[in-house]
């Protein structure tokens, strides 16, 4: 019983186990799956989503939501693209994305905190505004054919470890540190758990919300930098509905949309599980058009299992108290 609770009571371990099982299954089905090259590809394809999901996990923990991150990613990517075209030094190219991203995150936070607009409405509105802004900034054409000056920022390996993995580990470690060990983490969870109670006990609600949206913006900006480094172009559709992917990953990871809980490692394994499945199915010959179906069914399946498990746990508790 104890080992079971240890393994299944903690979402990140369950998901890590699921990742291992999925990897083994696909390994038997396709010789191309479990190769260093393929795993690196999966990781490289996940890095932007990994960063954004970390931010979304913070936002969900405060009982907020952000639909607009895809639009923000597009805007940041345009500025990164321009700074490369303009021949700016590497430092500017690196920092402009996170800077703009943080600014956009603070706009969301201002509407939510000062304007007292429910997060879903504020960010839904901003999503539309950002999409139009992307179109305006790009003037209807794409930024394409950028020189490969940023290739090193995504393709280098350090001691055999892809540099993108290092980015992810650094940001997730920081996120985990904040949530688990810093007073800020307590404030974030308290805000999401019961905002009124948190305010009455002296938690700076406004400050906390500004932090989570700003921090997410920073991550989105850095993701935009990596996006441009990888694809070397920016289209009007860049970013798209990545917000929905990120919400799915966070929820799979055990973070509640109702707030009060944040599972940082869970979000990471949530993204990896989705990406492993998508990649594996393609390798065994399922057309990539099924990607969305796989994601949706996975989410619903996990939610239903979760609800049933919780129900049987409650029943067991009732029996025990009787």
């Amino acid at each position: 019983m104890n080992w079971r609770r240890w393994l299944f009571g903690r979402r990140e371990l369950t998901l890590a186990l699921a990742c291992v099982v999925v990897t083994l299954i696909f390994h038997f089905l396709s010789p191309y799956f479990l190769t260093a090259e393929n795993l690196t590809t999966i990781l490289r394809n996940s890095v932007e989503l990994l960063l954004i999901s970390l931010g979304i996990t913070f936002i969900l923990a405060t009982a907020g939501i952000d639909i607009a991150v895809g639009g923000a990613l597009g805007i940041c990517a345009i500025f990164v693209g321009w700074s490369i075209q303009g021949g700016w030094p590497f430092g500017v190219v690196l920092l402009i994305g996170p800077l703009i991203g943080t600014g956009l995150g603070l706009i969301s936070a201002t509407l939510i905190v000062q304007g007292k607009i429910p997060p879903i409405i504020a960010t839904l509105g901003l999503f539309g505004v950002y999409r139009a802004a992307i179109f305006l900034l790009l003037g209807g054409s794409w930024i394409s054919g950028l020189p490969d000056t940023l290739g090193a920022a995504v393709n280098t390996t350090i001691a055999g470890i892809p540099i993108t993995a290092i980015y992810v580990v650094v940001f997730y470690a920081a996120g985990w540190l904040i949530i688990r060990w810093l007073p800020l983490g307590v404030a974030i969870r308290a805000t999401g758990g019961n905002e009124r109670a948190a305010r009455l006990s002296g938690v700076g609600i406004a400050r906390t919300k500004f932090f989570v949206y700003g921090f997410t913006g920073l991550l989105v900006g850095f993701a935009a930098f990596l996006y441009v480094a990888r694809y070397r172009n920016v289209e009007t559709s860049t970013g798209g509905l990545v917000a929905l992917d990120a919400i799915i990953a966070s929820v799979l990871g055990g973070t509640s949309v109702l707030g009060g809980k944040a599972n940082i490692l869970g979000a990471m394994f949530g993204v990896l599980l989705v990406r492993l499945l998508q990649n594996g199915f393609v390798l065994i010959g399922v057309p990539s058009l099924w990607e969305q179906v796989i994601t949706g069914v996975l989410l619903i399946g996990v939610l239903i299992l979760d609800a049933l498990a919780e129900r049987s746990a409650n029943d067991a508790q009732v029996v025990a108290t009787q």
Partner: protein
Amino acid sequence: MIAAIKQIRFSGLLALWFIALVVFALRAPAFFTVANFTSVLQFSTLLALVTLGQTLVILSGGGGIDLSVGGIVSLSGLVIASLLKAGMPGFAATLAGVVFGGVLGGINGSIITRLRLLPLIVTLGTYYAYNGLALALTGGAPISGLPASFGLLGQSEILTIPLHTVVLVAPIFLLLLFTLNQTPLGRWIYAVGSNEKTARLVGLPVDRIRLGVYISSGVLGALAGLVADSWLLSARPNIGDNLELLSLTAALLGGTSIFGGSGGISGSLVAVLFFTSLQVGLQMLNINSIWQLGLVGLFLIGSVLLDRLIRTAQTK
């Protein structure tokens, strides 16, 4: 006081629509013509049907939202088209498609009410599942070449008003308006939305009412799919794209509270006509339709901010 706010909101939206109409009329002489009036209505039907469903879902509270509705439109449209291609008569295929849409909505509703899961997350999952299925099953290609006789609903007009506006949108709107305001069922939807706990205590079948609104949203989505099929004589796997965000925005801009229990479908319908006028007008001025999305986003934020300001001013 609350009635006053609603009145201000509603007239504000009407004024906004009126301003848009005047601006377009001044800038594009062809805007204020009968033909253009027809085309605004023609374009508005899909969003109108979906927004009516979305409004019911939001009104019923409990965090009600239906993100999957665009997928329902696409998928039901495909079902109707493939049944027609298989030789089924138009009426039977339509009926099957509408039932199918109801089932898709019922899946949302059952998972949400039985397992007490959040609508946002459940319909996010089915958003991926339904949209994904529509793409995957067709390989992304439309089902085209439907019999020309099937175009009756989508392409003909009565006195310059599109047939589907006359036989679908208007009657459904009036039926829902009557149901919401004049029948116990309608008042129950508001009651469940404004205070779930009290509604349960007085014995309202909260879960059945909520299941019902999700099924209605599915049925309305399928009707939108039907109109699209009949209009284009083909079923596109992505015809419902963006309808979830647009319908959500229209419902909220129309004055329905995201927390449920207050608002209504009249505001939603005006918001839909406003959106469509923007879309058609911008097209006439050769301005990219992406601006519609941007303007609508601004208006959405602006309207909620204004709402707050009026409310604070009145409480002072």
